[in-house]
C-alpha cells in the first residue's frame, strides 16, 4: 500500500494512449493531506505534470479521472468522483464532479484515479480491473450514444463514456456515468480528442476505515441529520433541484429570453411542483445517497433521468418555452448525445438573440421549437449552425458579435441565476476558477435569496468574505468525494424554524451584513484557530478523520479548500485565463428599473475579494499566501 492513510487505495494509474504504456502514477501522502483528492488534487497533478500553454485537445493534454477518500466509503452522498483537464471551452482549469458508479468501482479495483495522456490511433476504451488497466478496441462503440455505449460494455462494471458530442469535439461535451454527467467544461471533448470512448472498472477491494467504529457512528448521525433536515430530508427528495424554479423566478433571477429578464410569467409550468405533480415517476439517488434529489420521468415510454433546475431554466424560461414535457425530452436527448445542458441551453439562447437582432442567419426563435431536436443533433455532429453553437457562446460572439449578451464568464456559460438580483453570485461567477459555474462561484444566492437566513441581495457588504468561505467549503467537500448538497445542512435545521418576521431573523440578517471582517479573520487564522470538529453542522472533517486516520479538523478541512481554490487559480494564471469579468449585460443593463446593474457593486466587491483571498490587485495569489498554504513546496512525484 503506497499510503499510510485509509480511505484511499494508495495507487493511481497512468495510461499513455499514444504508446499503449500503462504504469503507476505516484502521489505523495503529503499531497493527500494538503489537497485531499478529487478536483484539488487533480489540479496539483496538472500543475506539476502538464506543460503550460498546451492545446487542451492535443495528445499531450492530460485527462484525469480521480476520487476522494470518501468516494465509495458508504458515508452519505459519496459516489462522487471527478474529471479534470485544461478546458477546451475556456482555456482555464476544467473540473467536473459526477455521481455515477465509475468512481466507486475504480476504487474497488484498488485505484484512486487514472491519468490519461496521448492519443490512440483508433477508438479505444480503458478496461480497469484489480490487475490494472488494459486499452481495448472501441471501434464498434464509436458513434453510439451514451446509453448504447454503456449497454455494449461489460455488465455490472462502473462506466464513464462519451457520446457523439465528445467524439466530435463539441467544446462543452460531457462524460456520462449511468445517467449522471460530469457535465461542465467540455471534458468529453478532451476524451474524444484522445479517441477515448469509454472507461469501465470492476473490482471487489474493500475501502477500509482507520477507526471503523468511530466512522460508522459518525456516518449514522450524519445520515440522520440529512434525513431530518428540511432541505435535504424533504425539499430535495420531493422536488429535486427543480424546486428552485419558483423561488428564483420570484427573486427576479430566473434567466428569461437570454437573460434579458429575471421573471417568466409561465415559471409555474416548468417548476419543481409541476414536475412532481405531472411527470415524476419516482426520485432517485447516486449510490449511498439518503437525499435522492434525482428525478425519474417518462420519455417515449421509458423511465429516464429528469431535468435539473439549470436545464429547466435554460431550456424553459431562457428560450420562452413553457412545455415541461419538451424539456424532459431534450434533456434525455442531450444526455444521450453527451452535451452539457447548461452551456448548450445558454448558447442556444444567445444564438436566438443573435438571430432576432439580425446578426445571425438562422431559423431559431424564442417561443417556437420545431427546430430544437434537429439542432441538438446538429450541435453534437457539428453540422450547419450547430457547428458554430458547438463552439460555445464566447467563440460565437467572436465570430458574430454580441459579446455583451453572450452570457459566459471566463468562457463558461453562466448557470441559471441572474446575478443582478444576487450580487454575491455576480462576484462568484466572475472569480470562479472554472468560469460561470454556480457551485464554483460559491452559490451566494443561497445566502442572499433562498436560504433560511439571508443577506441583502443588492448590497455588496460582506459579500467578498462570504463568497470566499462558501467557495472554500465547496472545494473541500468536492475534494473529499462528497456531494456539495450535504452542505445545505450546515444551516442547522433549527435555523429553519426561526420566525422570518421575528426580531432574531432581523438581527441575524444584520449581523451577516456586517460579518465580513470576522469572516476575513476566520480565513486568516485557519487552521490553528479551528482545531476542532463541528459535526452538528459540518460533519465532513470528522468523518474524513475517522476514515483516513488523518488529524483532520474543521480548520484544516477549510484550509484544504482554500488551498484547492488557490492552486486552481494558479493554474489559470499560468494559462493566461485569470481575467475576472462578467458580460456587459450584467454589468451595464438594468434588470429591475429600481436597481442598478452590477458595475458599481463589482467595483467594490472585486478588490475586497482579492484582499480576503490574499491575492494582489490583479488577482494573482501573493507569494506569502502560497507559502502559507504550502503550494509549490510539495512534490507530486
Amino acid at each position: 500500500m503506497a499510503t499510510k492513510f485509509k480511505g484511499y487505495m494508495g495507487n493511481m494509474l497512468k495510461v499513455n494512449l499514444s504508446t499503449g504504456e500503462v504504469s503507476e502514477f505516484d502521489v505523495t501522502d503529503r499531497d493527500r493531506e494538503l489537497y485531499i483528492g478529487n478536483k484539488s488534487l487533480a489540479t496539483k497533478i496538472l500543475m506539476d505534470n502538464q506543460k503550460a500553454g498546451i492545446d487542451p485537445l492535443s495528445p499531450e493534454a492530460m485527462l484525469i479521472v480521480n476520487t476522494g477518500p470518501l468516494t465509495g466509503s458508504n458515508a452519505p452522498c459519496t459516489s462522487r468522483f471527478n474529471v479534470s483537464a485544461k478546458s477546451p471551452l475556456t482555456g482555464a482549469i476544467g473540473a467536473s464532479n459526477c455521481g455515477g458508479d465509475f468512481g466507486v468501482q475504480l476504487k474497488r479495483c484498488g485505484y484512486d484515479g487514472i491519468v490519461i495522456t496521448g492519443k490512440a490511433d483508433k477508438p479505444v476504451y480503458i478496461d480497469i480491473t484489480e490487475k490494472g488497466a488494459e486499452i481495448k478496441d472501441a471501434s464498434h462503440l464509436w458513434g453510439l450514444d451514451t446509453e448504447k455505449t454503456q449497454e455494449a460494455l461489460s455488465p455490472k462494471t462502473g462506466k464513464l463514456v462519451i457520446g457523439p458530442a465528445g467524439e466530435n469535439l463539441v467544446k462543452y461535451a460531457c462524460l456520462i456515468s449511468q445517467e449522471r454527467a460530469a457535465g461542465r467544461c467540455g471534458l468529453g471533448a478532451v476524451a474524444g480528442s484522445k479517441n477515448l470512448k469509454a472507461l469501465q472498472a470492476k473490482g471487489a477491494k474493500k475501502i477500509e476505515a482507520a477507526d471503523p467504529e468511530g466512522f460508522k457512528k459518525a456516518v449514522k448521525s450524519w445520515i440522520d441529520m440529512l434525513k431530518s433536515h428540511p432541505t435535504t430530508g424533504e425539499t430535495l427528495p420531493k422536488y429535486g433541484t427543480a424546486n428552485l424554479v419558483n423561488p428564483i423566478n420570484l427573486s427576479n433571477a430566473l434567466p428569461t429570453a437570454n437573460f434579458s429578464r429575471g421573471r417568466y410569467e409561465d415559471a409555474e409550468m416548468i417548476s419543481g411542483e409541476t414536475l412532481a405533480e405531472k411527470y415524476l415517476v419516482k426520485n432517485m439517488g447516486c449510490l449511498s445517497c439518503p437525499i435522492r434529489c434525482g428525478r425519474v420521468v417518462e420519455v417515449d415510454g421509458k423511465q429516464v433521468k429528469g431535468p435539473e433546475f439549470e436545464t429547466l431554466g435554460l431550456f424553459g424560461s431562457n428560450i420562452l418555452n413553457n412545455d415541461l414535457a419538451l424539456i424532459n425530452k431534450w434533456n434525455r436527448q442531450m444526455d444521450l448525445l453527451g452535451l452539457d445542458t447548461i452551456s448548450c441551453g445558454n448558447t442556444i439562447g444567445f444564438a436566438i438573440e443573435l438571430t432576432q437582432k439580425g446578426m445571425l442567419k438562422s431559423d431559431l426563435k424564442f417561443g417556437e421549437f420545431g427546430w430544437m431536436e434537429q439542432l441538438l443533433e446538429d450541435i453534437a455532429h457539428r453540422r450547419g449552425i450547430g457547428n458554430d453553437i458547438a463552439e460555445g457562446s464566447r467563440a460565437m460572439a467572436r465570430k458574430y458579435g454580441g459579446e455583451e449578451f453572450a452570457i459566459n464568464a471566463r468562457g463558461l456559460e453562466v448557470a441559471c441565476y441572474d446575478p443582478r438580483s444576487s450580487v454575491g453570485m455576480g462576484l462568484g461567477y466572475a472569480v470562479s476558477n472554472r468560469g460561470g459555474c454556480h457551485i464554483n462561484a460559491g452559490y451566494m444566492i443561497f445566502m442572499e435569496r433562498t436560504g433560511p437566513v439571508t443577506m441583502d441581495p443588492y448590497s455588496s457588504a460582506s459579500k467578498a468574505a462570504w463568497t470566499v468561505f462558501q467557495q472554500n467549503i465547496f472545494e473541500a467537500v468536492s475534494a473529499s468525494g462528497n456531494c456539495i448538497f450535504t452542505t445545505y445542512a450546515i444551516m442547522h435545521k433549527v435555523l429553519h424554524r426561526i420566525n422570518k418576521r421575528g426580531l432574531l431573523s432581523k438581527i441575524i440578517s444584520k449581523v451577516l451584513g456586517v460579518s465580513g471582517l470576522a469572516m476575513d479573520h476566520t480565513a486568516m487564522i485557519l487552521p490553528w484557530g479551528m482545531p476542532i470538529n463541528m459535526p452538528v453542522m459540518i460533519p465532513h472533517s470528522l468523518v474524513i478523520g475517522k476514515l483516513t486516520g488523518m488529524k483532520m479538523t474543521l480548520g484544516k478541512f477549510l484550509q484544504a479548500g482554500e488551498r484547492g481554490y488557490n492552486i486552481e487559480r494558479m493554474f489559470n494564471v499560468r494559462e493566461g485565463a485569470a481575467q475576472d469579468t462578467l458580460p456587459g449585460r450584467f454589468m451595464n443593463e438594468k434588470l429591475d428599473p429600481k436597481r442598478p446593474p452590477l458595475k458599481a457593486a463589482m467595483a467594490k466587491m472585486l478588490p475586497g475579494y482579492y484582499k480576503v483571498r490574499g491575492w494582489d490587485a490583479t488577482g494573482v495569489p501573493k507569494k506569502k499566501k502560497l507559502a502559507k498554504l504550502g503550494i509549490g513546496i510539495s512534490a507530486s512525484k
Partner: protein
Amino acid sequence: MDKPEVTVRFYTALRARAGTDEIACRAASVRGVLRYLKSNFGNDFNKTLNSCHIFLNEENIVFLRGASTKLKDGDTLHILPPTGGG
C-alpha cells in the same frame, strides 16, 4: 369597508401541507394574512410558515414594510419555504 381580497400562493413543502396551491382571503396587511393562515391550517403548516420567504406580487416583503406591508385588491402573496439546490 371590506378588507382587500388577495390571492395567497404556496410552494413546495408548504403547498403539500396546505393541500392546495392557492387560496383567496381578505386582509389589510401581510400580518393579517399570516393570522388568517395560522388559524385556518394545522400545526405542521404553521411551523413551516414561520420560516418562509414572502413576496408581495414581485417584491420580497423585506424590501417593503415586512409583515406591516399593506395589501390592496388583486394582490398576490407568494409564500415559500427556504430551500437550496443548484
